[in-house]
């Protein structure tokens, strides 16, 4: 018995020690320090990314995602496009950032980076995307791409140039919204003094200056990046094969951006005898961090510099020359015929579609569950399809009035507003075809596919079948009398046409060229450029407006701005035009809406009868125009402050005391 017990003990001990070695039967078992090795993982490091051409490319493609796309929620104010701050549309979306915080004048420096509170983010935050992450990715790419073994040098050079141009677009976007910026010239590493600000001299030499560079330095920095792209032989002027390369940045984009950069910098916002606003209290800097720069130079050039307009003219000319030399890969999309429908299709293609000659820089939609965001879906994740029903961007009478008559003469239908319209003027007929692509107005004949509207006549007047038969008409879509049409279309074509955001299209460049020429006194040449854009939609020369003194610079500039609103509004364009020209008067004027009534054929009284009860006879109208009262903008009642022309930088970032200064007034 004793013997058995003793044996049992030995067995027990053996079993214990033995099993403890097997404690984790499948994996290796270490003892002591070796037991505490790091856990297994799948780590992706910089070395992995730049070990293979495919991975490196994926890294850059991902970076492309953060280019400015006015429909991306990164850039929207809680799903509202920034254009809702301009005069072409007014937002009726109560929960949207524009109506809830911007219109009441509630925005503050604390809100930058907040997904509903600012039109552009300086710092990332809850859904808003600043530019810095993208800039860092670009520098990482540029600094590391040479390590990739399976890629030839020409390709590396091309991709580097793309990264530089991508960075330049981000800097340009931020310049428009903030003025001068910290200039980042490399990807910072662990252990660097992060708080130090980044400015070095714009040409890669010179002194280290903390904080924000001046407007001029920032512009030169961007210009320098663009110059490097232009000088790079490996990057093509335009993509040769859209199927495999469509959407990638090109040398043409660099030429175009250069014209656009100097156009923006030369505009009165920065380029003026006086800054757009003085500081109430001059910013105080820590010693050595920003105190050697006049903070006003970060939002202003210091004086009026007319030569900048020449620079813009030269840049435009350089673009068009290079374009011609390359066989004109970029050109206005031209209509197939001369009907209104032809013009409309040409225009729609120009601003909306992929694979056209129009887009010099295009930005792919975000992934919205449908491959790579090729289509805008009615209820997709992209703005505006998900918010337009609620009138997120409901067009105003002001915009409506900007579109000329189809004969090229400026619109003058205002005379019948708020009258009995005894002359029976149909202000919806015979207009610039772009009107119908921009907003939904009553129309008798529609020669397009109108699935949503079931090929009906568009009787979107009060009492019309279209309004009473579709729930969204009553829920804000048509808040101001006209429905949003640009980009949302009829809620059906979405699924058909492959879409892309036109970050820079050639129509814009023609108009930029026109404006720069006008600014430098070449009015005749300016009108020629302008007319090219008008011609695409069948409009004759601006000169048919003989009542206008087009040799007057201001008159011509105003016409160019109006033309830009017809061509480019809702493409992050109109708001910035108002900002560039410091249009306080427009910002401060209340906007208008229209009640459209069909006239009773007999009595001439206003009615609410749908077209279906009119025996096919198109009615006459009565137009009641009134001030918009829902979600009024604070500055309509005299609370304007020029500080609104530039966005505030997040206070928490300025508090880091590395030389940032707030823009004046915030």
């Amino acid at each position, binding site marked *: 018995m004793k013997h058995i017990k003793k044996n049992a*003990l030995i067995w*027990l001990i053996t079993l*214990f020690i033995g*099993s*403890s070695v097997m*404690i*984790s039967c499948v994996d290796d078992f270490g003892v*002591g*320090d070796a*037991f*505490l090795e*790091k*856990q297994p*993982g799948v780590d*992706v*490091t*910089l070395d*992995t*990314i730049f070990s293979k051409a495919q*991975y490196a490319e*994926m890294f850059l*493609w*991902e*970076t492309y*995602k953060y280019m400015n796309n006015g429909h991306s929620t990164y850039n929207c104010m809680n799903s509202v496009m920034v254009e809702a701050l301009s005069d072409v549309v007014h937002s009726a979306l109560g*929960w949207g950032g524009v109506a*809830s*915080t911007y219109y*009441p004048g*509630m925005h*503050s420096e*604390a*809100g930058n980076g907040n997904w509903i509170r600012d039109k552009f983010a*300086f710092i*990332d935050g809850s859904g808003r995307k600043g530019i*810095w*992450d*993208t*800039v*860092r*990715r670009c520098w990482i790419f540029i600094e590391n791409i040479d390590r990739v073994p399976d890629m030839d040098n020409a390709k590396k050079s091309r991709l580097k140039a793309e990264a530089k141009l991508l960075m330049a677009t981000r800097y340009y976007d931020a310049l428009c919204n903030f003025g001068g910026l*910290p200039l*980042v010239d490399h990807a*910072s590493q*662990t252990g660097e003094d*992060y*708080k*130090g*600000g*980044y400015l070095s001299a714009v040409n890669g030499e010179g002194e280290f200056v903390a904080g924000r560079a001046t407007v001029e330095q920032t512009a030169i920095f961007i210009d320098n990046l663009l110059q490097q792209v232009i000088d790079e032989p490996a990057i093509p002027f335009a993509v040769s094969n859209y*199927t*495999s*390369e469509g*959407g990638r940045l090109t040398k043409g984009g660099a030429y175009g951006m250069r014209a656009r950069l100097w156009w923006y910098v030369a505009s009165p916002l920065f380029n003026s005898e006086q800054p757009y606003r003085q500081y109430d209290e001059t910013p105080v800097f820590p010693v050595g961090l920003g105190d050697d720069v006049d903070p006003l130079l970060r939002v202003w050039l210091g004086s009026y510099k007319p030569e900048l307009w020449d620079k813009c003219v030269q840049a435009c000319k350089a673009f068009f020359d290079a374009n011609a030399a390359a066989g004109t890969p970029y050109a206005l999309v031209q209509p197939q015929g001369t009907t209104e429908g032809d013009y409309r299709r040409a225009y729609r293609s120009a601003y909306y579609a992929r694979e056209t000659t129009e887009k010099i820089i295009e930005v792919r939609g975000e*992934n919205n569950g449908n*491959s*790579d965001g090729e289509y805008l879906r009615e209820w997709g994740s992209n703005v505006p399809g998900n918010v337009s029903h609620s009138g997120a961007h409901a067009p105003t009478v002001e915009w409506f009035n900007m579109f000329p008559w189809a004969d090229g003469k400026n619109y003058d239908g205002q005379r019948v507003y708020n009258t009995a319209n005894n002359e029976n003027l149909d202000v919806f007929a015979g207009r610039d075809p772009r009107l119908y692509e921009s907003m939904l107005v009553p129309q008798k004949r529609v020669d397009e596919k109108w699935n949503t509207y079931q090929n009906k006549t568009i009787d979107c007047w009060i009492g019309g079948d279209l309004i009473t038969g579709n729930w969204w008409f009553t829920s804000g879509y048509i808040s101001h009398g006209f429905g949003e049409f640009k980009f949302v279309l009829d809620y059906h074509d979405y699924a058909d046409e492959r879409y892309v955001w036109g970050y820079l299209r050639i129509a814009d460049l023609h108009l930029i060229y026109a404006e720069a020429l006008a600014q430098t006194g070449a009015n005749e040449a300016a009108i020629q450029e302008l007319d090219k854009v008008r011609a695409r939609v069948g409009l004759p020369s601006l000169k048919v407006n003989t009542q206008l003194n087009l040799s007057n610079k201001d008159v011509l500039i105003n016409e160019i701005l109006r033309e830009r609103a017809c061509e480019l509004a809702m493409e992050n364009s109109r708001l910035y035009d108002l900002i560039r020209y410091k249009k306080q008067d427009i910002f401060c004027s209340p906007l208008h809406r229209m009640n459209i009534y069909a006239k009773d054929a007999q009595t001439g009284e206003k009615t609410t009868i749908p077209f279906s009860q009119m025996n096919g006879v198109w009615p006459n109208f009565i137009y009641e125009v009134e001030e918009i009262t829902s979600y009024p903008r604070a500055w309509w009642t005299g609370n304007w402050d020029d500080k609104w022309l530039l966005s505030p930088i997040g206070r*928490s970032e300025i*508090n880091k005391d*590395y030389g940032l200064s707030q823009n004046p007034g915030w």
Partner: protein
Amino acid sequence: MNIYKSILILSVLFVTTSVYGQQALFDKDSIKADLGFGIEQKLQNTSAAVSIITQEELKQTAAINLAEALYGRLLGLTALKNGGFSGDANYGPSLNVRGLQTLSENNLLILVDGVKRPIDRLSVDEVESVMVLKDAAAVALLGYQGVNGALLIKTKRGGQGNLNVDVSYDHKFTFDPQMADFVDAETYAKSMNEARFNDGLAAAYTEKELALFKNGSDPFFYPNVNWKEEALTNVGSEDRLNMAIHGSNKSLRYFTMMNYTGSKGMFKDTKQPDFDSQLKYSKANIRANLDFAVTPTTNMVVNVLANFIETNEPSSSNANDIIYQIYRLPASAFPIKTPDDVWGGDQNYTNANPVARIQDSGREKTHHRALYADAKLTQKLDFVTNGLTASVRLAYDNYSRINEEHNKSFQYGYVEYAGELGDTSKVNSVVYGDKVNNLTYNKWLGNQWRAAQFALSLDYQKSFADNDIQASLIYNTESEVGMGRYNTFYRSNVMGYMHYGLKQKLMLDLVLAANGSNRSYPEKWAFSPTFSVAYIFANNKEHSVLNYGKVRTSAGIQHSDYVPMNGIWLENYAGSHGNIVFKPSYDGNNWGSALTHYPLTSFALETAYKYNLGVDLRILGSVDVTADAYYNRRDNIMLKANDLNSWVVGRPDLYATQGKVESYGIELGLNYAKRFGKDFLLHSAAYLTLGSNQIVDYIEMPTEEYQSLVGQRVGQSRGLEAVGFFKDEADIANSPEQQFSQVRPGDIKYKDQNNDKVINEDDEIFFGYGGSIPETNFAFNLGAEYKGVGFNVQFQGAAGITKYLGTVGVWDCVKGNNNLSTHYLANAWRPNSDNASAIYPRLTTQDNQNNYRGNTIWNKNLNWTKLRNIEVYYRLPESWMKKIFVSDAKIFVQGENLLTFSNMKVMDPEVLGTSYPVMKGINIGASFKF
């Protein structure tokens, strides 16, 4: 506030003047403090701060699991009630010792028989004692994970006698769920009109429609549904059946047990032809704890617990989901079913209908399997030197949960008049979703983990003259492998323990520990020394006043292996959502697109400096007094350091070990137990703990000085200071501009803290307390027994906590079409009325950024006192029982959660939220020992 104060004062008075927890005071000589790895110290001699509770007192509750029996039972352990159904994983209170000590992890280590194991599935019946380990000396051997304190649970072991059989059965009726009350359809519709009026919008309902809501004559179009009544029966039940067989003989002591625990929820009409979706929980614990004397010098301990669980709930909606929908849905939302027999629902609420979810979505079952096994072999090595022992311990635990679903989807929709109101010929009938008649079957692995431990120790014990010496050398390794990647942790300890006792009066303890972990890799090892002293200045059972007195103090430097993310030292490029494809397309992933964080190169493990001073007294042979004061300081807390980093660099996350927190407090406990004559027994206990903390260093960029977290508590409540509500437009015009959203009369008016004439984020201040652990905790219990008839009552309370009132439907009302509580409506600012007593802002339908943010209205200081348990029992006289071979028999009635006194009336102050509610319980049961 007054109620809480008076109860507190009463309880303290009561205790100090007369009274007493357990039925007899602990025998400090036989009960031992367990410091882990078999190192035990007599309660009388220990220099560590511990408190203990035994089976006897645990059985006074009707708790469904062990954790639920711990409310207010242990001095220094804060147990806070959570919502949820009793079958939910991790059901039970949140447990904490000595408040928040750090900005990183504050969780308690829970050990069952010396091994880190979950507490939620243990039954009260299998537990012998629960001990809370509080100071540095108490947790010195527990490694990184014990740094915040520990709870040590000992299960029962075999004892005296040949063969003992214990049987008990309990049945608990649960009822009266603690839920808020909501308004009816008419009131809701009127309130919606009022909210829209407040917003400057047109009314949503006409008078005619309001009348239809009121008189209920058109229930499909103008419904008035009491969702609570339709979905819930308001009663549930719990059952516990326990059978234990235990005993001992010469070479074997055994305790074996089978415990069944069952619970049933309160969903209504769950029995469908093809399934039953009722909330159900059933669990069997089968335990065998064995002690073998293998040889006279060899002992072996084997503990095995097998744990089988099944739960049942509606498919795709767990208990909390259903309750959430009831909170959210107004009575007027839609009918239960439309005239076309389609479940009610609409575009806004989608398939929220709780009745449909219960009755027509199928059911989901879970099957849990767990095995917890450990064995320890101890060999006396007296042949080497007298008093030397070696032991080896091995533990292996594993768990898995398999989910099994029988699912179907239902259609939902609504009807509305397209023409005139009441014109049934023109009805717009909208239906969403697909109807699926057949249940579809799915199964998946819900969770799994495994853990193993291996420990070796060499122990030496010797007494000579007046000296007692004890020393141990311990080597321990543990592995923990959770579900998914980055969840494998290895830890290891090499420790030396030394104890010196002089004349049973002076005790010195020293622990030198080298703790290792791969979690904090590459900084794996840290050295943690702890020293403690106890001096027993009185120990005389016969003394007329002071029977026992001890002062003890401890100091230790300990560490945590906390890192904010696993693998933080690695450079890691991860993807993010979305991608851009240029043809030829890649496979759609976005692997390696951005650096997630700067890899950390300089490591310092979070360090805890802990001090404790305590006194234990026994007075008059019947009162135990324990008092402790502690001060803890945490250093090198790893924090997100983005504020050290400019956004301009492109912003990968950066971490730095810069946080510092100090925490401090006192614990005071009184226990009284006295027997008067043969038949009368009186006992009582009172506990009070006060504790707070303060952030000493933090990484931040406050705009205003008063916004610095330094000097504030961990989790300190922050927000704007409300100074009332805007009376009218003139009031708004005359007040500083509030920049969150456009304000209207009835919106909250805030104080301009920095006098810059605008109210924005810069005016947020700190106020109140933290939001998770109350700073004041107290408990009081009282019991008496006379001739076998006895009662116990136990109160527990807390104060010094600030919680955010954001519960949907209760405070987050009307906007987003949320439900509306009667409480809110009664206390809201109303247009055109005297709002002097209004507590809450106006009703609104909009996303009102001004009102709905942290402020002194929503962040409310809470306090409560709860009658946790009450018990009345009768021990049947022995003389009767002997005839049927029963040695002990007890029948009892127990109540739980029956009374709450609080400054929060509308909901349970501990469970603000939409989880499955806390219910009251009446338990009846009987136990027999054969």
